[in-house]
């Protein structure tokens, strides 16, 4: 099971990233769990300063931009 974490304080871009990630995980047919991390101090623990960011199983994969669901599919697949 993959743990997909969306790091962001709740701006429109963050929810777009969450949506794209969900689509990507679904179409890749993965078993997944999406977790949104909105607390700024928790986000810092990932070393992320530019939100939104995407982490898979605790590892930061994307920082400061919103990739399309196809691109995310490559990252998590």
């Amino acid at each position, binding site marked *: 099971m993959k743990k997909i974490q969306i790091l962001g304080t709740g701006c429109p871009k963050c929810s777009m990233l969450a949506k794209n990630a969900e689509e990507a995980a679904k179409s890749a047919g993965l078993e997944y769990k999406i977790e949104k991390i909105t607390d700024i101090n928790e986000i810092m623990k990932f*070393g992320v*300063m*530019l939100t939104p960011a995407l982490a898979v199983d605790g590892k930061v994969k994307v920082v400061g931009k919103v990739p399309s669901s196809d691109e995310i599919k490559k990252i998590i697949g």
Partner: protein
Amino acid sequence: MNWKTEWKKLLLIVVVFAVCFYLPVGKVRFDSAVTESLVLVKEYARQHVLLCLVPAFFIAGAIAVFISQASVMKYLGPGANKVLAYGVASVSGTILAVCSCTVLPLFAGIYRMGAGLGPASAFLYSGPAINVLAIILTARILGLEMGIARAVGAVVFSIVIGLLMHLIYRRRQREKVEAQMAMPEAQVRRPLWKNALYFASMVGILVFANWARSGDIRAVFLCCPGGLSTYNVEGSIIQKSDDGLTILDTYGKEHQIPADLLIKTQQVRKNNLYEWIHRIRWIIVLILVVGFLIMLLNWFTRKEIAQWVGSTWGFAKQILPLLFAGVLIAGFLLGRPGCEGLIPTRWVNAAVGGNSVRANLFASIAGAFMYFATLTEVPILHGLMGAGMGKGPALALLLAGPALSLPNMLVIRSVIGTQKTAVYVSLVVVMATISGVIFGTIF
């Protein structure tokens, strides 16, 4: 029905019903406020959207996509040169803070993982004020000198605030996070001169398309009977009578100035170069657009152009609805110069008119606690200035407002603690007040 979950909706419906039931339609003040808000929306749509906002969105989109954020952030990292870090922090808002929601994570990151409290505070203060959209919109709507004062004031005072925060807390050990800064991946590199030319041509289009003609005459008048603040309007007189003056300003807007408010009129000395540029401005814009398209087709890949358009569209989608609501509300509450909205001009003028230290301080404190959605501070300030706010207090509010709000104070507190937050907020209020007083004295 489950009362525990439904009571909020019921309450909302009751409140909305009560408002509708007692809606003061037909009362002169209410009706004119509604008209004012529509007039203001029309004015923005006619004067500010096509030539100013649209190019500004494209510039912001380009900054977000084509300027490498990693190259800026390395100057704010843990090993950064301390002196350089302050300088970079004070101006990097233009590149890093294109969206206001990115400011707080960056602040927390610079504090916890990067260059420390001083540069982090400097960034927090200047970031929201010097993002490109904010500067362009401020300069266009509130006047060029206000736009420049906002940018310069934010940069200069952010360094002062950063240094003071550093000095006050120099003995404290900060709670560092031992995390590796996760850098965004570097974008495709283009030689610097190509990037510079690309941005310069876009800024050129924006500047020349908005090149106003100079007026024949400048009228100075009071905001309202017994008011403390004055305005300048530059343009040409189209009607003059005993009741007052009608001036067509250089943007093509009519101003009716009652005779009892008029202080003086003066001739404007024409500058030949300025007039000449105004006459040929569309030729300049055309040349720039053609040059820009050539650059775009030759230096950029299809994917990059798509990203740029995508990010521009993202800004437009995010900001236009907020701005629309902001303009409606500002018009409804505050009206325009000479036409009152819901809030009497008298009140505004008494609270923040003129340029007293008290007015400046009041504007800074109000700004510090109030929340402004991205860019809505501009129409709201426009409304307030129309209702008699002085230029000094307006700058004070512009500096303290977007940098702070009650919700973001709470987030800042969770990062640096209560005491440091209180010191930071007081510094911001004091600095904004001082810059307001200075600006109000000069202009």
